[in-house]
């Protein structure tokens, strides 16, 4: 049974320690332990490091993009430094709406059709869930980080953070269905590449309609409903 519902992404550990004096790299591999029925993708996992000595990130000069395509946000997870501007182009031939009820980054762009879309500048760090109020299944996650050291996992689950100043800090591994995995690190660190395991413990809900087209379980013993 486990072969189907429990996927283990394992990566061979790679040792890769930077030799620069003023900056260190963190690299490693994250294994996803997923008991959900919908397999999680490594690209949905964001790894970020927050030095205790905060480093204010420089927002990119060009807007980052999270587009709507096929009634989905793409990419569904976007990590941006605080102060970055994200544009939400609509590539679908239908109206979409992009909004968020996040307390620090609440916005509502209203409905708009296909086009360049509108932009929003995320000034406050935090997790911003982006929805479309027309399509309930559309949800995107914008991680507004107060650190410039972040990365998504590649297809094989590996990550690499570079040019981090030496010193203590915390490493975070985030996925929407998991409590963030955190590790306190002292940089530069010695030893092998990190081997991490992220458990995706948030449950997924199957489609409500059963094979008979019935969505609700009703008591049948009495034959009432």
């Amino acid at each position, binding site marked *: 049974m486990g072969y189907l519902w429990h996927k283990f992404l394992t990566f061979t550990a790679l040792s890769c320690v930077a030799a620069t004096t003023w900056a260190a790299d963190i690299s490693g591999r994250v294994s996803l332990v997923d008991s959900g029925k919908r397999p999680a993708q490594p690209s949905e996992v964001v790894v970020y490091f927050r030095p205790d000595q905060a480093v204010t990130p420089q927002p990119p000069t060009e807007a980052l993009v999270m587009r709507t395509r096929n009634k989905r946000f793409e990419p569904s997870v976007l990590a941006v430094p605080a102060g970055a501007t994200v544009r939400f182009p609509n590539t679908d031939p239908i109206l979409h709406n992009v909004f968020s009820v996040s307390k620090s980054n609440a916005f509502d762009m209203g409905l708009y059709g296909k086009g360049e879309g509108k932009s929003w500048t995320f000034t406050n760090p*935090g997790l911003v*869930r982006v929805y479309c109020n027309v399509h309930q299944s559309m949800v995107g996650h914008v991680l507004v980080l107060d650190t410039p050291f972040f990365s998504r996992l590649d297809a094989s689950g590996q990550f690499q953070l570079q040019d981090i100043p030496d010193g203590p800090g915390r490493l975070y591994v985030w996925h929407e269905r998991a409590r963030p995995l955190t590790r306190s690190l002292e940089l530069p660190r010695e030893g092998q590449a990190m081997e991490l395991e992220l458990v995706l413990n948030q449950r997924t809900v199957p489609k409500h309609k059963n094979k008979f087209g019935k*969505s609700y379980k009703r008591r049948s013993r009495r034959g009432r409903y």
Partner: protein
Amino acid sequence: MAATESSPRWSLATQIFLLTALLVVLVVGLAVGVGVMQGQRLAQQSVDESLTRSTITQVDIERLRARQAELVAEIIATDTNITSYIRQAAGDELFGDGAGQDTELDRASIADLMAERQAEYEFDLAVVLGVDGEVLARSDRPVRDDETLSEDPLVAEMVAELIPITDIWRDGQDLYQMAMTPMDENFNLIGFLMIGMRIDASFLDEVKRATGAEQIWTTPDGQSLSTLPAVETEQILADLNSSDTTFQALMAGQSDTYRRVLDFGGSSWKINVEPVALDETQVLAAVMSLVPLEPVLAPHRRQWMILGAVGAAAILLGLALSLMFSRRVTRPLSQLSTAAAAASAGDYKQHFDATGSSEIVSLGEAFESLLSELREKQDMEEYVSDLSRFLPDPGMDSGGSNRTQQAGGKPAREELALLALDYRHLARHDESSNAEDSIRRFQASLSQIAALAEVLDASLESFSGHRAIIGFRGAEAVPHALEFSGHVAEHASDKPSMALVMGVVDRGMVRAGLSTAEVLIGRASHQLDLLLEEADTGMMLLSPGIKSSAETLLERFDVQAGVRKGRLSGRKYYALDFPTLAQMASDASERTIAVDVEQTESVIESVSRTREIVPGDVFADRYEVISILGQGGMGVVYKALDRELEDFVALKTLLPDTASDSQYLEQLKEEIRLARKVTHPNVLRTFDFGSHHGLAYVSMEYVRGMTLRFLMKRARLPFSAGLRISRQVCAGLAAAHGEDVVHRDIKPENVILQANGNAKLMDFGIASPVNAGDEGLGVFAGTPRYASPEQMEGKGLDATADVFACGVMMYELFSGETPFPGTDLMEIYMAKRHGTGTPLGEVWTDAPAGVEAVVMRCLAPDLDQRYANGDELGAALGDLRA
């Protein structure tokens, strides 16, 4: 000891009535019974159906409400505006520091959202749960911090299986129809939503409005909702809880839905009790639907009453009809029965007019015909019985059938011409004479004069010793007497002395001991004796009265009465001698055509020729002559004993003249050969033909009776008797015609009537044995009065000739008149040929309907218009009623 109790004999009408009534009652009773039973079944079925409909509708309403709750839950659970809040309330675990969390605020916001939706979607309760069943918000009240529903069975099931569930959900005192569903964000579970519709009084009212059935919900702990007044609800529940074990079992989860009848509030109800249970044992509530029986049963009860009333009416009507029917059916039977009883008691004067069914009608007709037959027979018998007194008594046959007496022994005074004949030469006894010879000679003489008397319409009044007295009546009395005496004078072998007087005498019977004698008292009688004593043999003396009244007659014959001296006294008397008398008689025969008397000569001839045959003789070595029965046109008839068969027969000798004609004899033999084949009760059978000493004879069946002519002379027959005789003659005739035998001489003289009233037709082929094949022979044989025109023309004959003669005979029989009157042959023939006879209705004004038509059809000149034969005529007569 075994007292035979006479069982009551019910009348047919009563039996039919009782049977019909029983059938009617049975059928109607059965129909009503079946109707009521069927009605009861239908009523029960109707109640059950009503209850079933009610529960189905109730379930439908609940299902609709459940679906409504489900839809609301769907809408809310998929509303991004709400799910985003709920997701938000779950926290943003980005940095693990709980930054930005404000649980209270989130929950309040969610609760507020739910309250808004509640107002919008009209549900009663919304509960938002976290992923583990912890209560995040309720629409009805604030939520405690650690409040959770994870222990609730339904919630636990949903959390475990992540499936939506709809069911009855109990929350404290309240019951809800609850739709519960997980909420997700892109399939990631974010919590659960419960949307509930409260089961309350308004819901029950709604169900009641839709189903027409009262509703009660009750929980095991005694909570209840009802559409009935509280008092009645309590009473019902108390009843069920205390005495209904099935209900108790149901509330304990050990019994399923059931139905029963319950009485409360003064009426009966049928209730359906259904458990609402979470699982096999945990019962949340019992749902009851109540249907009052009365409104459902009332229409049926009305129907039963109507059915009963109609049934009763049908029975009453059926009884009345069956009574009417039975009476109607049996009325003719009852009348018939009464008539039959009367008839069996001898009263045939019943008439029965049958109406109704064809069987009754034909029965009535048959009965009427039977009665008519009996009436006719009775009349006939009465008539014959009356007349049979004229018949000679057994043992006195020697007197001959023609020895007649007028009106029996009833005394009468009348004017007569009296002719006395005295054979006094027989009184002289000498050597050569003997008793046998003298008696035989007197017998022969007597037979001659009796035969003559018959022909000349005279009567043999009395005879004694060697004397006989003949009486003549009517206007022609004296000429007839003279004619009579003339014949005697001409033909008699023994010459008598004669005397003729005219006067009034008293006639009658006297009796002395066992002997009876006929007497004539009067001066005429005395005068007759006196004259006879004075008359010599071969001489007739006339009284002065006769002399004067016969003067004209004598002149006509150009004779004169002489005067003679009396034999004893020597006094002078008027007298006629025998030669003169003989001349007068022969002249008379030439000058008058009296149809009835045309055979006189031959009679005298035959009598004289056969005078040798006297009683005691044996004829043809076989027939012992007993007596002379009579004389007819063809010869003399004797009663004889056939020694071979030891039975009486009638022997008819034929005139010697005809008997010597060999061609005639051959024809006669052929005719008799055919006639012998006719065997019928109404036909006098012909046995044999032979000859003895040159005298041809025919032997025939001997019957004791009278000829119809004899009867008709005496008195007119009653119509019924005449009809009966006619039918019998026709029956006999039909039998003969069936054998291709034609009678050719139907007349009253040839019909003999037995004492029992049976008529027989006699002399087949004998009276006029002219062969039908001898057409154009031109010889007429028969009796002109009765013969058909074609017969008078001497043509060949067929059955229609007999029908014609029958018609004449019936005409005469019924009316006493003849249809073709006249004394001239040509006159009679012309009337017949042209059909100008007197219609029957003219001489018989009250002729019954149909009789004239039948009779006159027989008399049609055209053969084709008559009845074809005796059979057809008999059928036509059969339709007539006396």
